[in-house]
């Protein structure tokens, strides 16, 4: 039971360390609170600021046209934007820049050009008349054999007048100009929403009806919030950092200060030392998981309920990342170097393994990298276990994490020196 003595000692040493406690427990919780606040949709407005300059007015400085006003109302009704009006007689870019100030964020400007209403009316009439002409012409072609001469003449005259009227309508497209900052990460979202509103406005004017009905539902059996989906990622990422950064630094520090040497002179075996540390990491990670989920329940009303697979994954993940920590601290002699290497491995892994961003949005070469990162399978397994309850996904990831856990802990124990050279 010497491993239990080690488990108690290193756990106690960790609990009493303020920095250890902060980085292992409080920092992940703070991060969850930040993510939760951003993605839960609570806590007030979360829409995109946009400047709109309406140049379609009756006379200089006159009142905005009816259709341009209705278009702005349509934009507003999406709740996606916080619209700020730009006077028609100023340079919109300068106005936006001055209004936002040097720290004001991204500039997004939508300019409704002069003639918006006229172009929209003419364009809509042209489309509707064109469709009517096409419909009547098709009917004429079909029924011509059954019409008498006077009917034929009346039909042809009507079609000719309709064509003449259509050709008299100006062939100009209504244009909207959107100006976006190249560094604006929300640029594509903003642009797509404006485009969707413009399309819907178009369809409404020409009287088209939605043929396709779009229904949105969830693949999870329970109704989840955005924060539910972040919890497995945050949990997995910090279980990883606890092992790869935390354990690496601690073990290297113990080694540098001669604590490991002191213990190795006693009858304590190497495996007892490793087992004690792995158990300590497991306890820490179970605590972390529990606290993150509990916080999610209390603050963000998440629905996640951890099951046996979640616990098993947390255990195997703790073993796997403890193994990596032992491996790094065994291979790298210098404490600072070991800590730096731990960071250099952990941070890219955190962002490339789909914990915070889906792997699918990354370039294909990074997706290939993600496939060889242990955190990918661990976070995916946790997501399946905590949210989707998808048995096959759980088993496959559990098996991969299990194999990696054994592999890394064996490697870690091989490089942990219990005897000097």
């Amino acid at each position: 039971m010497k491993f239990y003595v080690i488990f108690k000692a290193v756990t106690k040493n960790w609990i009493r360390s303020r920095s250890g406690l902060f980085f292992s427990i409080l920092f992940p919780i703070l991060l969850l609170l930040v993510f939760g606040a951003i993605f839960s949709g609570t806590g007030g407005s979360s829409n995109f600021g946009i400047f709109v300059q309406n140049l379609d007015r009756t006379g200089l400085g006159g009142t905005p046209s009816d259709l341009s006003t209705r278009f702005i109302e349509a934009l507003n009704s999406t709740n996606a934007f916080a619209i700020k009006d730009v006077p028609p007689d100023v340079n919109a870019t300068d106005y936006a820049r001055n209004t936002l100030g040097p720290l004001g964020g991204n500039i997004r400007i939508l300019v409704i050009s002069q003639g918006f209403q006229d172009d929209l009316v003419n364009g809509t009439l042209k489309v509707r008349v064109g469709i009517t002409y096409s419909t009547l012409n098709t009917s004429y072609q079909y029924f011509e054999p059954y019409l008498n001469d006077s009917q034929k003449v009346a039909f042809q005259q009507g079609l000719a007048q309709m064509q003449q009227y259509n050709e008299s309508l100006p062939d100009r497209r209504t244009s909207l100009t959107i100006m976006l900052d190249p560094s604006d990460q929300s640029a594509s979202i903003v642009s797509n929403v404006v485009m969707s509103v413009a399309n819907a406005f178009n369809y409404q004017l020409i009287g088209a009806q939605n043929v396709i009905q779009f229904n949105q539902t969830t693949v999870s059996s329970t109704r989840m919030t955005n924060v539910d989906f972040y919890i497995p990622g945050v949990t997995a990422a910090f279980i990883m950092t606890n092992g790869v950064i935390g354990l690496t630094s601690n073990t290297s520090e113990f080694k540098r200060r001669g604590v490991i040497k002191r213990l190795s002179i006693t009858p304590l075996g190497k495996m007892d030392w490793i087992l004690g540390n792995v158990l300590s990491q497991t306890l820490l990670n179970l605590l972390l998981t529990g606290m993150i989920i509990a916080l999610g329940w209390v603050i963000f009303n998440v629905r996640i309920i951890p099951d046996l697979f979640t616990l098993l994954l947390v255990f195997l993940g703790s073993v796997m990342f403890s193994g990596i920590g032992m491996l790094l601290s065994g291979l790298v002699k210098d404490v600072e170097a070991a800590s730096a290497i731990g960071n250099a491995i952990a941070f890219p892994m955190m962002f490339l393994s789909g914990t915070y961003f889906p792997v699918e949005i990354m370039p294909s070469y990074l997706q290939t990298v993600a496939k060889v990162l242990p955190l990918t399978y661990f976070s995916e397994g946790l997501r399946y276990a905590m949210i989707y309850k998808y048995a096959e996904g759980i088993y496959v990831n559990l098996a991969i994490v299990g194999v990696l856990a054994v592999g890394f802990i064996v490697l870690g124990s091989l490089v942990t020196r219990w005897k000097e050279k």
Partner: protein
Amino acid sequence: MGKAVVEVDSLVKQYGKLKAVDGISFEVNEGEIFAFLGPNGAGKTTTVEILECLRPLTSGSANVLGYDVTKNDDVKKIKRSIGVLPQDFSALEKLTVKENIELIGDMYAKHIDVAEVIKLLDLQEKTNEKFENLSGGLKQRVGVAAALVNDPQLVFLDEPTTGLDPKARREVWSVITGLKKMQKTVFLTTHYMEEAQILADRIAIIDKGKIVAIDSPQELISQHGGLKILIIRKGDKGLSDILQKEYDKVTLDKSGDVSVKVDDVEEMWRVIATLTELKINKEMEIQSPTIEDVFLKVVGGRITEEGELKQ
């Protein structure tokens, strides 16, 4: 003389072409304080760590308490029976004095009461103090307490006072003296001449992996320390000239002190008689050689405070 608890014969430890320990042989007897004296890099810690079963030997043999350090079964028995204060001892910073000693004690099947060890090392007031808050001297005392918690027959103290201030150093010396009273055998490594001379029953001087002298401090001094010196303070050239007529090794330094090197006690008394006849009533001092002189003679250099050899 007690029986040998450490027996080392032709021990070699080699790293590539470098021989850190070069064929040394010695014994440590039960109940004695045996000091391994040498500069940094002389091979002291390497030898001790071989005896502690922490490092494998290259050739030769080493037995501790009758067990062979190269045999796995014997290694377990050695580890159970020895106490160790490693060089630069440290413990878990956030654990208290008591918790750290308990941690080491729990590694053994049996250990003595932690409170008893704490009392023995006079650490009662610091029992619940975190290790990180202790001074250097107290930390070393905790290290010695941890080394004693399994009630070992043989205690290895590797550079126990390095880096400590003179007061803390003397505190540790008193602890080591106490160990002898408890009839423990102490294997001490040090680069401090004074420490070895004051504490040790026998000293082995090691340099470049070889033992260059081994014996009791008195014997070492008598064999290698050189002559005693009688110093007559604030003398003058006249006195110096008179003495030079009768004795071979008389010198006068700039401050006026006259030094007479004497071969033995008899010759010293003769010098004193001469001075009495001359009615010289000056302050006198007899300087005996020390281990430092021995070291200078056998190694050809001195050891700095930091443990480096200065030729």
